[in-house]
């Protein structure tokens, strides 16, 4: 990485922080001057007098708590805020010395690329090949060169160019978006949480590709919570705090690969019981195994799922007991979400059966296609209370306020407020759920899962979009719930922050099968 360092210090509200990389000339590719931004009149400023300089040919990581305004800042740099009628903003953004003022988004997009969150909504074409080629065609790149780029970038991101984009997993779609943006070969690239749904290998692939581009002179800004995975590739890391850019102050322990900062150490409780060293994941596993009589929960026998002509899940036997916290690992498209869907009862297996703790069959094989079983009863039909945290929390939020969202699952207001307090959302109790940041929405969805007192808790990527501190707190909340209730938890995740602290078992999946326990 060379001798990357951050010069300058943030002061008060409008200090300038500039990252300077020793092996590149300190030419400012991006200059943000006294930027203020808010969502509508009368709303508080999200970005407050932010000034920031990013040198050309560098890879910068933008960290910060969820809801701190990272995505808003990237939107401003991409030139979208100026064209958003509901946004109130002032200040200036210059790319290569040219101000955004008076320029259309399409003009700005010729120098600045932007990969947003929500990969499925960004994909505009049926196949991976068309998706990568689309942007290049709009830039009038010759057909032969487009062909070369399609080949190069699909190979770089381990994608099949002929694959149907809609049938890819969330992580694979994320890689398609990155490949399509990179193929346009623009001087500056902004990526908003590109690793959110990626496995470690995929994350390393994306970050390696970005590093090579930065070395080739492109300026790249990555907004990401998985600091320890992006930090080794970055020239410098900054943090968005109180609407301004500051040098990154994250605890060094959270940046050390394979280690985690113990929750108790930070919170001050049980301080004497925790050593100063960050514990290894396997140490947690041994601590988390509950002893004594445990109530059996669902069991899966020979469950197989076939979709689009291929087997996406093939599980011989899987048994859960209360207190179990099972972590599902595996590359993108390995079948983790499919397994959770079968457990939740929203996807019916093509072969095999699921039984409850008393040996009653709660789900059996269905010869009919999954899409036509609209009349099938939901998860509650099994008699087992199941709560499912979806990869996209937007699907499960539907009321006018955060507290109403909780009360829709549990009428006990005090219990709801206690869970919100635990999740750091008590201050947003009267807020509109769908207006929260992605990370806050995910925490709220997790809170609704916990407050509904499930016997089976299914979490799909619970750490995505969350900052380091919050992930630990959220996982501790799950751990406390498991300790005090008859419940088993299954987590599908690529992001081991926090999850490995509470898990007492791990399944590694590969092409729908369990490759390692």
């Amino acid at each position, binding site marked *: 990485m060379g001798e990357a360092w951050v010069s300058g210090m943030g002061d008060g509200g409008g200090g300038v922080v500039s990252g300077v990389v020793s092996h590149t000339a300190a030419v400012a590719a991006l200059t943000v001057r006294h930027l203020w931004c808010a969502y509508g009149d009368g709303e508080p400023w999200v970005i407050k007098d932010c000034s920031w300089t990013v040198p050309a040919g560098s890879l910068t990581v933008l960290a910060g708590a969820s809801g701190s305004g990272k995505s808003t800042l990237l939107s401003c740099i991409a030139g979208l805020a100026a064209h958003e009628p509901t946004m109130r903003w002032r200040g200036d953004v210059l790319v290569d010395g040219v101000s955004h003022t008076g320029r259309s988004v*399409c003009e700005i997009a010729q120098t600045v690329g932007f990969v947003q969150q929500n990969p499925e909504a*960004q*994909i*505009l074409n049926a196949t991976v090949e068309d998706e990568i*080629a689309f942007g290049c065609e709009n830039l009038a790149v010759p057909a032969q060169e487009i062909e070369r780029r399609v080949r190069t970038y699909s190979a770089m991101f381990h994608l099949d160019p002929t694959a*149907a984009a809609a049938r890819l997993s969330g992580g694979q779609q994320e890689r398609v978006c990155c490949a399509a943006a990179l193929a346009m070969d623009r001087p500056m690239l902004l990526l908003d949480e590109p690793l959110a749904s990626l496995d470690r290998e995929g994350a390393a692939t994306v970050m390696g590709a970005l590093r090579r581009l930065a070395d080739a002179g492109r300026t790249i800004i990555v907004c990401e919570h998985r600091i320890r995975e992006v930090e080794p590739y970055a020239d410098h890391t900054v943090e968005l705090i109180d609407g301004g850019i500051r040098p990154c102050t994250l605890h060094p322990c959270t940046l050390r690969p394979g280690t985690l900062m113990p929750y108790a150490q930070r919170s001050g409780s049980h301080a004497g019981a925790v050593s100063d060293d960050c514990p290894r994941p396997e140490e947690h596993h041994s601590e988390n195994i509950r002893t004594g009589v445990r109530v059996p929960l669902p069991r899966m026998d020979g469950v197989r799922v076939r979709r689009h002509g291929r087997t996406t899940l093939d599980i011989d036997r899987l048994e859960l007991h209360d207190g179990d916290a099972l972590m599902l690992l595996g590359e993108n498209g390995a079948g983790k979400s499919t397994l959770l869907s079968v457990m939740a009862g929203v996807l019916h297996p093509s072969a095999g059966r699921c039984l409850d703790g008393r040996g009653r069959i709660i789900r059996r094989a269905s010869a009919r296609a999954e899409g036509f079983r*609209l009349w099938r009863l939901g*998860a509650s039909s099994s008699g087992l209370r199941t709560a499912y945290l979806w990869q*996209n929390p937007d699907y499960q939020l*539907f009321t006018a306020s955060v507290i109403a969202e909780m009360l829709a699952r549990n009428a006990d207001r005090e219990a709801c407020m206690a869970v919100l307090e635990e999740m750091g959302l008590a201050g947003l109790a009267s807020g509109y759920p769908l207006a929260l940041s992605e990370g806050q929405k995910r925490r709220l969805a997790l809170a609704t899962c916990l407050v509904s007192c499930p016997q089976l808790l299914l979490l799909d990527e619970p750490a995505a979009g969350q900052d380091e501190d919050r992930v630990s707190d959220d996982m501790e909340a799950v751990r406390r719930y498991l300790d005090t209730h008859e419940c088993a938890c299954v987590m599908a995740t690529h992001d081991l922050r926090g999850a490995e602290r509470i898990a007492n078992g791990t399944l590694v999946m590969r092409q729908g099968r369990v490759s390692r326990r």
Partner: protein
Amino acid sequence: MNRGAVVLAVLHPGVAMASAIAAFVFFLICGDPWRLGVFMGLLCLVECGYGMTVPLLRTMMVFVPAGVVMALSTAWITGDMASAGMIVVRFATLWLSATPLVCVPELAFVRMLNQMRAPRTVALIILIALRSMHLLAAQMHMVYTAWRTVPRGGGRGVKLVRIAVPLMNRVMVISTCMAVSVEMRCFSLDSRVPASVYHPVALHRRDVAFLVLLALAMVVAVTLPWVRHG
């Protein structure tokens, strides 16, 4: 590696559009339900022969319920069951004529229009309209699936809210995301801005054969009842 590859039988986008227009014009001209039935049956056979069976079934899941709802509400308002039957036939014609369009990749239309140097606004409208259809169908399925895992309770209105709010929210999020995505890919509405064509769209024999079969279906639908009745 070739998992989930697109294997749709693809027509030339111009042929797909022409066949859709021709089928609909035929419906407008021909008011006889018997002739229309013959035409629709033959068109259905041709489309299945071109490998569009699965897309036909999928689009049927949208058009036929929509037609039945429209027909029943019309019959309820006007008290005329005959007009309700005709509405169902209209939706069925729409279904059959729209299916070849749905099978064509969005980018093929954009490329064809770029080759023709047509206004970019038209290409954008087609791109967004076709993509929205696919995304909306996927989102409806996802919202419904997620709804099944939300704890039950409340009356019918509450249940409807639990589907309608996330769905409306997703529609808004997706429309914003798509608009940004199109702009960030430098898609310009100015026809003077140069754009290249990666895979030029060309007319093949099978496209011409499809048009001939469509014309034959129309001829048979018109002449067969005449032969039958002398």
